[in-house]
């Protein structure tokens, strides 16, 4: 029983996970305009993609948004996690504990809508942010990505030997010094992982971005989604293949960094 069951289960697992992706990659090299009919090998859709200003522009916007919001989310999430793990009692601790993870469970539609309402009323009362666009998307993504970073950073901070921080304190470092000299380097691998996760989440998000974006600031998922509604065109396959390639490389690098950090005994 065990002889054939295990390999079969593994095979099914792989097919289930990767068959759609493989077919997408294969069809990105399809000569034919019809997405489901093989018409011979070609790279023409890649060429077409590079001439598509709309897609390139939105890809650039998406990367900017992802980079900025992942970075901001890492800073905010780490600070939140640090406060929650290292300060035992302060006013509003319970509220912060609950709120920092709220975006994880909140339906995206609600997050998007509430942020949209916030931005509109802020514009009316404060005059900032003027209209919706890049800034509002970055703020919105930072909000929900920070929650993910906070969860990762919190678990790392909890598992970290606190006597390391006490030792630095004991040797004459003030609290801020201790954070930058000891805490930050020790939890750095987790923060890199958190940043990468935030980056991917931001790159991936369609719903929240649709709510808070304005004219002239469409992210890549928004453009793809609007194109697909008019029928799937093969250049989307090509785009998807490139994204898969990027993600694969990023994941491999992240995994390698984490493994090395673990070996170093972080």
């Amino acid at each position, binding site marked *: 029983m065990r002889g054939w069951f295990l390999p079969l289960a593994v095979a099914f697992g792989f097919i289930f996970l990767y068959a759609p992706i493989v077919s997408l990659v294969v069809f990105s090299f399809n000569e034919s305009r019809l997405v489901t009919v093989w018409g011979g090998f070609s790279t023409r859709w890649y060429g077409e993609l590079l001439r598509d200003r709309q897609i390139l522009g939105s890809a650039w916007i998406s990367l900017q948004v992802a980079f900025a919001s992942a970075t901001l989310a890492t800073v905010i999430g780490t600070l939140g996690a640090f406060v929650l793990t290292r300060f035992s009692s302060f006013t509003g601790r319970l509220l912060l504990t609950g709120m920092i993870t709220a975006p994880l469970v909140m339906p995206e539609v609600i997050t998007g809508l509430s942020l949209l309402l916030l931005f509109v009323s802020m514009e009316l009362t404060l005059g900032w942010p003027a209209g919706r666009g890049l800034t509002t998307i970055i703020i919105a993504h930072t909000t929900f990505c920070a929650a993910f970073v906070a969860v990762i950073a919190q678990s790392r901070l909890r598992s970290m030997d606190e006597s390391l921080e*006490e030792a630095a*304190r*004991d*040797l*004459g*470092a*003030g609290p801020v010094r201790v954070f930058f000299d000891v805490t930050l380097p020790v939890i750095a691998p987790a923060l890199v992982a958190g940043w990468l996760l935030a980056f991917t989440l931001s790159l991936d998000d369609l719903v929240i971005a649709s709510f808070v974006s304005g004219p002239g600031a469409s992210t890549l998922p928004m453009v793809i989604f609007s194109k697909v509604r008019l029928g799937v065109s093969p250049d989307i396959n090509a785009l998807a293949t490139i994204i898969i390639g990027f993600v694969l490389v990023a994941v491999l690098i992240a995994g390698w960094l984490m493994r090395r950090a673990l070996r170093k005994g972080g």
Partner: protein
Amino acid sequence: MSQPAIAADTKPWRREGATPFISVRGVTKQFGDFTAVADVDLEIYKSELFCLLGESGCGKSTLLRMLAGFEQATSGTITIDGEDMARVPPDRRPTNMMFQSYALFPHMTVEKNVAYGLLREGLKKSVAYERAAEMLRMVKLEKLARRRPDQLSGGQRQRVALARALVKRPKLLLLDEPLGALDKKLREETQFELIKIQETLGVTFIVVTHDQDEAMTLATRIGVMKDGKIEQIGEPREIYETPNSRFVADFIGSVNLFEGKVDAVAPDMMRIETYELGPVLLPPQAGLTLGQQVWGAVRPERFAISRSKPENTPNTWQGVVEEMGYIGHMSQYRIRLSNGVLIRASQSNRLRDEDPISWDEKVWISVQPSAFRVLTR
């Protein structure tokens, strides 16, 4: 750096009016409803190697952490070298601590770990690394200066932790179970090395340990703790020979306890009527009244075991060897007296070709009157 203490001053706690270097007065620490340290008074003198001994959860680590500044006392005062420590944060205290987990910074090399404290003092890089190297030479690790902590063995890590804690020349070094993570052989070697380093530098050490052998070997004085209180403070010999309670007698080494009442008091002799042994004769002890409930404590090695009835000893009983354990340098016995009482006795095996007393033999046990310690609690 102070000179090693001169002979006359090696036991300042025995001298009336000596000024303590560290004094802990009425210190209490509460965590919510739980009292970890309860109204502790402690005076420690310069260049002492003081051991806080107790089971886990007795408050010894909390007391140490209050000295280091990681915990604030709920009430009471701690002064080090005449300076009140109440408002001094850990990074400003003249103390350094060696952690149980060693707490070496994993992302720094050995020499960076050791130099870290000196750099925080604002020393120039070259000076700091020079002094770190000097300290590493002292703990015989100069060859491993460029390694990271995870490339070291447990014993090497322990030395790095010690070097890092000593390099700032603290007035007081706090050591939390310094040898706890080492195996038995290495622990014994390291004990003596620790004493040597302490004597060379003249730094005052406070060591927290649950290991009584370690405390007995290392300490100039021991403070035995229980439930947040200090039960007894004394030199190792005092703690062992004149414990002040059944707890201390039982905690340090093993002991036979016999409950009884003071039966008769004469100028040169006292008699206790015990439940287990009947009347026992021993030297008089001050502060006891007729009819008072007391416990007689005898260490196992103070019993003499023989096949024939010993002469000239008042406290003699007959029994049968029920258990016998040969350890090598000594043998342990459990002897059942005719009234059913079990006595723990031991004998050192001084002769190689001795015919050892063994299981089921009928024996006589006797004990000198002076071997008894009378306890009132």
